[in-house]
């Protein structure tokens, strides 16, 4: 293999395109890569004019046209060779298209990011690690009214009215931020107009260019104002609610005192303890006074109980109570209240000797309440079942179910919702048709929850209602 062949072989395997040109600029030799660059694999480049052999000091960027998007960006170097009698020049061509395109893409991406930042609704800063502001977007300038040159080179503490102006404190803060990577906090910034705005800062740290902080600043003044208004309104509402509860508690007591006189004297008159009333009409009136008084007492009691529960002052005692006795007593009491209903209408069933732990008065209140509802809404002669049984057959561990089942008018789904919400009943038809505050069911639920149990209501229109009072296992006295 002679020298020429060897050189040619070497040149053909170069990654760069190589042309040898004479003094007139005519191509004497082109290597393989040059033919590829100029897409002249079939046709010879040799003999054609390329360019004057003007020596280059730095590479010159040229473009080899290649049709749609296939233009090649090439760095060209020309250097003279003086080995022969003919003065030839070597043109080396390095394809930098990829690098160029990568740089182009980088520039484009940069432009995209920049426009994101610039068009952002939020303010934006870039600072160095001494917290000096290197870049600011127009949103921040718009937000604060400052000119760009006011902001660039300044520090956050120049704008932040709450910030520590102490350099050591700022440095410590930056240090923490680098550790944690990011931080979000609220502060206040002064504006060029002399006002102060609430801003939320989200800062993130990036190690680029020796460490940068990217700071997004959001004007949260409107949100803060709304929050403050809500807080004020909430405090006012709470104050009003508290005074309402206090008022109700006080009033209930005051209402009951005169009622005692009405109830006592009307009872004495009804029983004609000090002599006959004379007229049947008077007897009827006295009965009316007593009935209305009794109703008023129960209403006042409801309101008083509710205000106690709301105030967390409803005290419960834990005493062992015979359930059957409790249930029977409720039947008697409610039968007396609802005189139209026959007490035999209620069928009580309860395991013998079952005792529960609870508050006598509270449980009686719940039983009476549910039972009187059942009687009120029952269809005339249908039996009402009042039964207690373990939630799981013969196993007390899942607690105790006490059910009051009537086959009365029942309720639709939306009516159940209203019945469970104490302040809806006041507006409903039931309240008008059947005297009561409608608070009874709500109070019963509260009491059951205070006992650690719950109340469930199942009902269908025209089929009836089943109220299940569930008591947890720890309310069942297991001494047998």
């Amino acid at each position, binding site marked *: 293999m002679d020298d020429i062949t060897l050189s040619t072989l070497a040149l053909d395997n170069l990654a760069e395109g190589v042309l040898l040109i004479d003094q007139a*600029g005519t191509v004497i030799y082109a290597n393989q890569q040059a033919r590829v660059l100029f897409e002249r694999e079939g046709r010879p480049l040799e003999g054609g004019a390329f*360019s*004057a052999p*003007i020596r280059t000091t730095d590479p*010159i960027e*040229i*473009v*080899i*046209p290649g049709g749609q998007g296939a233009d090649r960006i090439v760095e*060209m170097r020309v250097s003279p060779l003086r080995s022969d009698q003919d003065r030839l020049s070597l043109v080396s061509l390095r394809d930098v298209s990829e690098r160029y395109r990568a740089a182009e893409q980088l520039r484009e991406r940069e432009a995209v990011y920049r426009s994101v930042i610039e068009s952002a609704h939020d303010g934006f800063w870039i600072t160095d690690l001494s917290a000096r502001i290197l870049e600011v977007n127009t949103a921040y300038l718009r937000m604060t009214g400052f000119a760009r040159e006011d902001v660039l080179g300044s520090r956050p503490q120049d704008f932040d009215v709450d910030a520590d102006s102490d350099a050591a404190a700022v440095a410590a803060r930056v240090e923490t931020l680098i550790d944690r990577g990011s931080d979000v906090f609220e502060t206040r910034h002064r504006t060029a107009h002399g006002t102060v705005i609430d801003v939320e800062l989200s800062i993130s740290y990036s190690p680029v260019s020796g460490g940068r902080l990217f700071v997004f600043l959001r004007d949260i003044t409107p949100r803060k104002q709304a929050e403050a208004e809500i807080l004020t309104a909430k405090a006012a509402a709470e104050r009003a609610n508290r005074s309402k509860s206090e008022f109700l508690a006080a009033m209930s007591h005051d209402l009951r005192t005169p009622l005692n006189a009405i109830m006592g004297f009307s009872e004495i008159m009804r029983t004609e303890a000090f002599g006959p009333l004379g007229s049947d009409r008077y007897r009827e009136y006295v009965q009316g006074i007593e009935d209305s008084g009794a109703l008023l007492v129960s209403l006042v009691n409801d309101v008083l109980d509710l205000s106690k529960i709301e105030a967390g002052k409803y005290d419960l005692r834990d005493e062992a109570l015979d359930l059957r006795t409790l249930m029977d007593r409720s039947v008697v009491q409610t039968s007396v209240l609802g005189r139209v209903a026959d007490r035999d209408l209620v069928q009580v069933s309860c395991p013998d000797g079952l005792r529960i732990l609870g508050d006598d008065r509270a449980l009686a209140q719940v039983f009476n309440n549910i039972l009187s509802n059942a009687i009120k809404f029952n269809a005339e002669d249908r039996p009402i079942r009042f039964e207690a049984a373990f939630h799981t057959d013969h196993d007390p561990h899942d607690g105790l179910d006490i059910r009051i089942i009537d086959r009365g008018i029942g309720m639709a789904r939306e009516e159940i919702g209203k019945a469970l919400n104490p302040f809806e009943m006041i507006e409903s038809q039931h309240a008008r048709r059947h005297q009561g505050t409608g608070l009874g069911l709500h109070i019963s639920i509260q009491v059951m929850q205070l006992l650690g149990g719950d109340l469930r209501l199942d009902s269908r229109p025209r089929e009836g209602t089943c109220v299940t009072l569930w008591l947890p296992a720890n309310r069942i006295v297991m001494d047998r």
Partner: protein
Amino acid sequence: MSDAAPIAGSGGGAGLGAGLRLFVLGQTETMRRAIQNARRLGPVDVVDVRDDPAAAELARVLATPTLMRTDDPRVRIVGDLRDLDAVRGHLGPPYDDPSDASATGHGNG
């Protein structure tokens, strides 16, 4: 640039009007520099290869920017023409006299 086509590739077309033609591609920085430098030599007919690929093909332009004498298309310089003295030297008379930038007026052919 409409009088460009007949000259290209015709080896010794000296009589067809001497002048300079610059083939460029797009408007990159290199192209702008080449145009600027070429204009310092006298009037230049600038042809964008994208607009007129046939002219470039006919003149067998291999790369852009390429400056050539319209009366002798073999005389050509590829690059941004930054070394203007060397460019003048290669173009030869009347371009080789740096003191007279206007020497290359159209009347010279």
